């Protein structure tokens, strides 16, 4: 039984379309270069998602993101909210039996979007009251992870 009682979200259709339209052969190379991780080492055991404290709130678990990345499915990976739900807690990293640093892979996927000058959250839209309450490290870390 999972340690965390997330409000369970329905996961989307599990099918993956693999075609010349969806496969971007350089996508995996870009993720590997940015993360410094050999994505092909992942053998789909699912330990990452099992250990992840946020996986109950993810529509696509990290294991599936790894598989989609191996296949070069850039669009599907970019459209998934998984990397934006990751809290960089490194639980997947310390548990991966293949020694993959998944936190770095998630960072690489985030950056491939952020470096197109696209913010995932807009700091100006956060209510002033919230900013007043939150510790500075919450704001700095969130902006570091989710703004370009």
């Amino acid at each position, binding site marked *: 039984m999972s340690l965390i009682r997330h*409000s369970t979200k329905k996961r989307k259709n599990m099918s993956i379309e693999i075609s010349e339209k969806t496969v971007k052969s350089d996508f995996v190379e870009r993720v590997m270069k940015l993360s410094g991780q050999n994505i092909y080492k992942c053998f789909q055991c699912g330990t990452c998602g099992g250990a992840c404290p*946020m996986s109950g709130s993810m529509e696509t678990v990290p294991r599936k993101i790894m598989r989609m990345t191996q296949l070069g499915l850039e669009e599907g990976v970019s459209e998934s909210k998984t990397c934006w739900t990751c809290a960089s807690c490194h639980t997947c990293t310390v548990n991966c039996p293949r020694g993959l640093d998944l936190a770095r892979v998630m960072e690489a996927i985030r950056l491939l979007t952020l470096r197109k000058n696209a913010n995932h959250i807009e700091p100006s839209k956060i209510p002033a009251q919230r900013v007043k309450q939150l510790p500075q490290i919450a704001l700095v870390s969130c902006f570091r992870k989710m703004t370009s």
Partner: protein
Amino acid sequence: MKVSYYPGCTLKTKAKNLEDGAVASMAALGVEFEELPRWNCCGAVHSLADDDLIHQVAPVRDLIRAMEQGSEKVVTLCSMCYNTLARANLLMREDETKRNTINSFMNEEKDYHGEVEVVHFLNFLRDTVGWEKLRSSVKVPLKGLKVATYYGCTLVRPRNVAIEPAGEQKIMKEFLEALGATAVGFPAETLCCGSYQILANPDAALDVSATILDGATRAGAEALALSCPLCEFNLGKTQEELLGKGKISKEVPVYYFTQLLALALGLGGEVCRFDLNDKLSAEFLKGRNYPLEAVA
């Protein structure tokens, strides 16, 4: 004894209650925290991209300040600052190419090669002050106080900067026991509190925070000790909402470990700054007759 000290941004404002108790406690034990001159924000999170060196500049600059003080180590209190500084330090020690790039970019600074050791305050208390000395300095033993030991992420992950070997989780227990309290370990003690997702995905962060709080309650804890201002917000300041939404069964007072230290050393509530905690914290201690005034 003097020791270099890096406070970090949050400790100067919203988390004064993490800093003040630690500085006063060290003064009481004959240790002077020498704050780094011209310190800057560490960046809060370690940059994980292989090509992103610019975000290493801020923590490395802080480490250079400590080196300029002639120190072999720099002590930090905030878990996130500890993690960010320690990982930048490892990078400067282990990766020659990146080290050379960062050093030549900061050509106005002295070259840095990882000369300084980044030490979390819990390790400093254990290894430099010592549990025996701490135990003998306690004026208000926290007898009967059952405190959950919450580590969170950044004190224990990744393993190359963990404050103790993986899976051990002894240091907070030994610390609390030195103060006379009863340490309560629980399965969620290294579970992430949701971190910065409290901004972007608050519901997901609240779910994990609720798991931690209820886990501590179920293990028999009456209070929870931690060392990170972001964990303190997620676990301490959201409890009214969590209780209202039925996500937790009861509220748990949350303290910085440094507040419990100052309290046990008899330094009083003024130093502990319980006014900055969740409302329940001071009330709970008063109810248990712990003196919130300084003890001579």
